[in-house]
């Protein structure tokens, strides 16, 4: 009867759920809360010490850092019951002047596993008592105690989750540092201690905010920043050693928590050589310095500006000038027609950009390290482009015509080529524009390629709009169209003159191909070009014959010409090309003694505190070649490099190179050029603009060297 009454009272008092009383200790409120409404005999459930800390005050982690004291919980449990240790959530760094503590602010749950006695009797209620001791600090520290209790009904079967606390406790447990397959080792490096960590969870993680919280308060200087060097398989943290390293001593292990990318892992590092792949790629850039800090609107704006400027780049200008000349032929007479042609050109540009973007995104998704201009890293593409340029040049020279010619342009636009011709010009313009990176474009495209496909496409669309805008604008604004020079015999001369930049472009692509694929490729492309020229001459012959005969019948000469074009094209695509001497391209020009780039070389130079200039370039990148020629290989720049003790590294992206692509991506870029000035003393690099001047480079070099002093 008495027992029944007690059970009844217990049931009334606890309503079948865990009950506890919160205690206000002065600067925090503490209570014990349970994951479940009860506990079965032998079952393990998590009970958490909940702290609601006053604003501005904090309590401490298991290692309190430079000062302070960890929260403790001393249990008084019924016979046969057990409680484990806290599952410590990852703490925060709490700076106090020049000191740093590890602890918690606001509300925090410290879960503890509680194991019920195997012989606990269902129906009874177990009262678990614990004395919690906190050091609560703000400016001053106050030790506070609380005697806490929680009553857990013992249930025959595992009890249902507590409606209030099950989810928060589960969340705390899920977020707590977990053991992971990490391999770690530490070694003295001069005054510092290097902690190298590799393992699966680190691959692809954003390591920017990586931080090591040691369990022992004597192994590192908590207040000092932790230097970060990324590696292919993990990272290396450079720590300022704590008391445990005084006088040449060394702790047996560094154990603690690595907080990284919103997650936390437990690790134990033994003394010894650092694991392979733990470093060598340099520190990550702070978020603010990355293209990653862009958002869609500014990125699209930059892309638009970049597209505009792209019109003026040497690889694009001849094509557009040719197009503009055809418009000029019409003066302002046929507005509606002109508009239609402008729009067709614009559509061609946009279609080409979107196709390029889609290809880039797809390749990226497939894991390929590609970027802007990536197609030019493929020798067959370069070879075909070289033939295309040759064909365009031959056309401009008047060897053959496409559709009708500029000569007939005096009549009506509609009579010529048709809209398909304009779309083709748009596509052609984009194809030949790829080697050029305009200012503003680098950051925008780099950003786009790290975004979801929709945002990336939006940026490429903006780029295309910017690229097409000047030409389309001309067709839409009667005033502009009227301002173009009147047609006349000069146009034929103009056309012949424009052929030569195109021959130059073709010659340049042949050079690129030779660098990529060696001398054998040179013979091949020249032979193909001669066949192509012969075919073009045959086509021209046929066209003239038809113009006279006007029988509209395709002659044998024309067919032979088309066949030879096909032969020339196939000949440069297949069989595959061999390896060229791309590295030879890095051979120093005149005054600039440089050496080729490798991440290891850069890391070694930076570790020695030497200033380094890195030139990310490619033979197919026109902006790069112009910068090389006009700025970097000039005597004043070479002298400044020498004077300031810079090592000049050339990172050649003419052919595919995942290491260089990764470095470009790290700086938010998807293409070359990229110029980095690493100042003396291992500092973060300064990014130079895409269009260099001697002044900009020399100023940056002097500034980089000055930092050493």
């Amino acid at each position, binding site marked *: 009867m008495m027992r029944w009454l007690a059970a009844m009272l217990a049931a009334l008092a606890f309503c079948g759920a865990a009950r506890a009383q919160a205690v206000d200790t002065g600067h925090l409120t503490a209570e014990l809360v349970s994951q479940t409404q009860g506990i079965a005999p032998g079952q393990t459930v998590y009970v958490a010490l909940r702290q609601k800390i006053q604003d501005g005050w904090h309590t401490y982690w298991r290692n309190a850092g430079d000062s302070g004291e960890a929260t403790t919980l001393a249990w008084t449990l019924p016979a046969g019951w057990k409680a484990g240790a806290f599952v410590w959530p990852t703490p925060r760094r709490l700076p106090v002047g020049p*000191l740093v503590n590890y602890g918690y602010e606001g509300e925090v749950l410290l879960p503890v596993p509680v194991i019920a006695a195997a012989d606990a009797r269902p129906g009874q209620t177990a009262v678990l008592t614990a004395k919690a001791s906190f050091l609560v600090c703000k400016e001053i520290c106050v030790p506070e105690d609380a005697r806490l209790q929680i009553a857990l009904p013992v249930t025959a079967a595992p009890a249902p989750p507590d409606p209030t606390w099950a989810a928060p406790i589960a969340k705390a447990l899920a977020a707590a540092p977990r053991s992971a397959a990490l391999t770690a080792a530490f070694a003295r490096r001069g005054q510092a201690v290097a902690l190298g960590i590799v393992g699966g969870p680190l691959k692809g993680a954003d390591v920017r905010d990586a931080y090591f919280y040691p369990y022992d308060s004597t192994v590192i200087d908590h207040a000092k920043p932790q230097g970060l060097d990324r590696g292919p398989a993990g990272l290396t943290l450079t720590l300022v050693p704590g008391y445990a390293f005084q006088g040449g001593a060394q702790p047996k292990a560094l154990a603690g928590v690595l907080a990284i990318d919103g997650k936390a892992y437990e690790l134990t590092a033994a003394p010894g050589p650092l694991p392979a792949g733990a470093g060598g790629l340099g520190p990550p850039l702070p978020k603010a310095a990355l293209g990653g800090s862009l958002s869609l609107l500014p990125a699209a704006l930059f892309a638009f500006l970049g597209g505009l400027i792209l019109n003026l780049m040497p690889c694009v200008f001849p094509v557009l000038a040719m197009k503009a000349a055809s418009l000029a032929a019409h003066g302002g007479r046929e507005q509606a027609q002109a508009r239609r042609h402008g729009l067709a050109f614009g559509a061609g540009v946009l279609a080409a950009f979107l196709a390029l973007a889609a290809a880039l995104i797809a390749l990226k998704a497939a894991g390929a390290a590609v970027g802007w201009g990536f197609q030019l890293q493929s020798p067959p593409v370069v070879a075909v482009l070289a033939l295309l340029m040759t064909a365009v040049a031959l056309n401009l020279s008047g060897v053959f015509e496409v559709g009708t010619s500029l000569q007939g342009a005096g009549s009506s636009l509609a009579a010529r080529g048709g809209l398909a011709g304009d779309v083709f010009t748009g596509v052609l313009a984009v194809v030949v524009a790829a080697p050029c990176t305009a200012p503003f474009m680098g950051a925008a495209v780099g950003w786009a390629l790290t975004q979801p496909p929709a945002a990336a496409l939006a940026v490429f669309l903006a780029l295309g709009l910017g690229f097409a805008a000047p030409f389309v604008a001309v067709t839409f604004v009667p005033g502009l169209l009227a301002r173009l020079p009147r047609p006349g015999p000069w146009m034929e001369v103009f056309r012949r003159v424009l052929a030569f930049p195109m021959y130059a472009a073709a010659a340049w692509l042949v050079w690129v191909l030779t660098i990529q694929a060696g001398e054998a490729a040179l013979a091949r492309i020249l032979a193909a070009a001669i066949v192509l020229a012969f075919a073009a001459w045959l086509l021209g012959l046929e066209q003239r014959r038809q113009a006279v005969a006007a029988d509209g019948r395709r002659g044998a000469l024309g067919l032979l010409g088309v066949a030879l074009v096909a032969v020339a094209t196939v000949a440069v695509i297949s069989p595959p090309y061999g390896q060229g001497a791309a590295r030879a391209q890095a051979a120093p020009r005149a005054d600039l003694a440089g050496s080729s780039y490798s991440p290891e070389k850069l890391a070694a130079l930076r570790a020695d505190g030497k200033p380094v200039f890195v030139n990310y370039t490619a033979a197919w990148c026109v902006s790069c070649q112009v910068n090389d020629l006009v700025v970097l290989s000039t005597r004043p720049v070479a002298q400044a490099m020498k004077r300031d003790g810079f090592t000049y590294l050339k990172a050649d992206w003419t052919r595919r190179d995942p290491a260089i692509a990764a470095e470009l991506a790290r700086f938010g870029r998807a293409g070359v050029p990229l110029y980095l000035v690493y*100042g003396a003393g291992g500092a973060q690099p300064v990014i130079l603009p895409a269009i260099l001047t001697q002044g900009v480079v020399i100023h940056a070099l002097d500034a980089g060297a000055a930092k050493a002093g």
Partner: protein
Amino acid sequence: MGFTRRTALVALTALGIAGPALAGPQIDQPAPDFQATDASDRVRALADDRGRIVVLEWTSDACPYSHKHYDSGNMQRLQAKARRQGVVWFTVMTAPRTSAEYMTPPEVRAWKRKVGSHATAVLIDSDGRLARAYEAKTTPHMFVIDRDGRLVYMGGIDDRPFTDPKSLKGADNYVADALADLEAHRPIAHPVTRPYGCSVKYPPLS
């Protein structure tokens, strides 16, 4: 945009250069010299006490850890014993004038009388220079300097990093150990230990 990015990088670079670890106090190396004013407005310099053992003790009247040692008389007994051995004992109070912890010289003198301190002097380190030179972290944080001016001990006062006065019972007092080792010409058994206590209140760097 390019400009702001570059500016940010330059700023970061400058920070990176400013950040290399300064060599803090090192065991068996000359202890950082200092000049500080005590509660009687007398300037005390470490160099003046060459030839004598010097103990530096960081304390704060607002810190429960310091209170554990003063309220129990533990610190005063240690001071008295050390002074009998001829040790110079400087108690250091680091707190900016703006902080609630700061005590004026008359307040410090009153505090010294009240707690019955046997320290040679209490140094008022309101600009934090002394604390920075020794990288003092906690109250208490203890330093022992030998007769040649070399730092021979730094760290906690004992092995009981708790506020509970009961924790004093059976504690291993590292400062007493170090002084005994010096007297006996033995190597210091634990030259470096973890300091524990409240954080030293550094004034912000101007």
